[in-house]
């Protein structure tokens, strides 16, 4: 029962992420953060950012590499946590 509910939840999450790509395939899918920044530049063309990052990823590929590392490290720990819990539960049963 519980597993079934969890599978449904995973299904909903995947559906929510994929559906846009199917019903709206021709959009650019830019980030909303970037869209807000574009709006500022549009209205304040003279605005000069008074501070710039020390380091910028050299390309979109490098950027997505760092983002995937971030997600992977997080997901790794989540898996470690639940694996450990499961192991303990199993040990307690024996």
């Amino acid at each position, binding site marked *: 029962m*519980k597993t079934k509910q969890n599978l449904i*939840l995973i299904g909903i999450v995947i559906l929510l992420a994929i559906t846009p790509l199917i019903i709206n395939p021709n959009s650019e899918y830019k980030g909303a953060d970037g869209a807000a920044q574009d709006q500022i530049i549009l209205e304040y063309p003279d*605005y000069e*950012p008074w*501070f710039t990052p020390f380091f910028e990823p050299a390309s979109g590929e490098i950027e997505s590499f*760092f*983002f995937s590392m971030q997600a992977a490290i997080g997901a790794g720990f989540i898996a470690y946590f639940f694996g450990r819990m499961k192991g303990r539960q199993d040990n307690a049963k024996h």
Partner: protein
Amino acid sequence: MHIMEGFLPKAYALFWWVLYMPFLIMGMKKLKNGLEKGHDNKLLIGLVAAFTFCISALKIPSVVGSCSHPTGIGLGAILFGPLMMAFIAAIVLLLQALILSHGGITTLGANGFSMGVVGPFAAFFAYKLALKSGLSKKVAIFIAAFSSNFLTYVMTSIQLGTAFSGQEGVVLSTLKYLSIFSLTQLPIAILEGFLTVLIFNLLRENKEQIRLVGMEEIL
């Protein structure tokens, strides 16, 4: 909610830093206390931090044809109270600012205030309020995570609307930024709600461990 580096005028950047600072310090103390409460508590703190770390890196497509990301703050705010997440949000934002040039040091005060203060407090109070109105725990968790994500972006809109009010004034300008964020954010916030309920379901399967760290109330 990542306002880019240098994209808030100095006075505004400073204002949000000053406002964020006390929460950051209280959050640090809260985290330190939590980590001293034994190994099980430490692991659970690791889980909420990892959840935020992981899903805030995911830019997810939204129906209106743009992308945005969850914050993952609701989970920790319900488990450990809102303050600890103020500090955990800062760690995530700092890494993203330094390594990914996503967000920034100068705007970390503003971004931290929206993601690390408004987000967790929204989750915390939404959770309590939902339980009080007789909703089930799962629905309460969903509402908490949803509100946390969505209100974070409402805060960002206010921050941009006040700093860049132009000729239309603060209110209209805030609404304009809200319109940029909200349609994208709505499905992402719903997604985060479901994802947070999923993690809670998995946690509840480990009742013994949850009891060890004294969090029976979430079971």
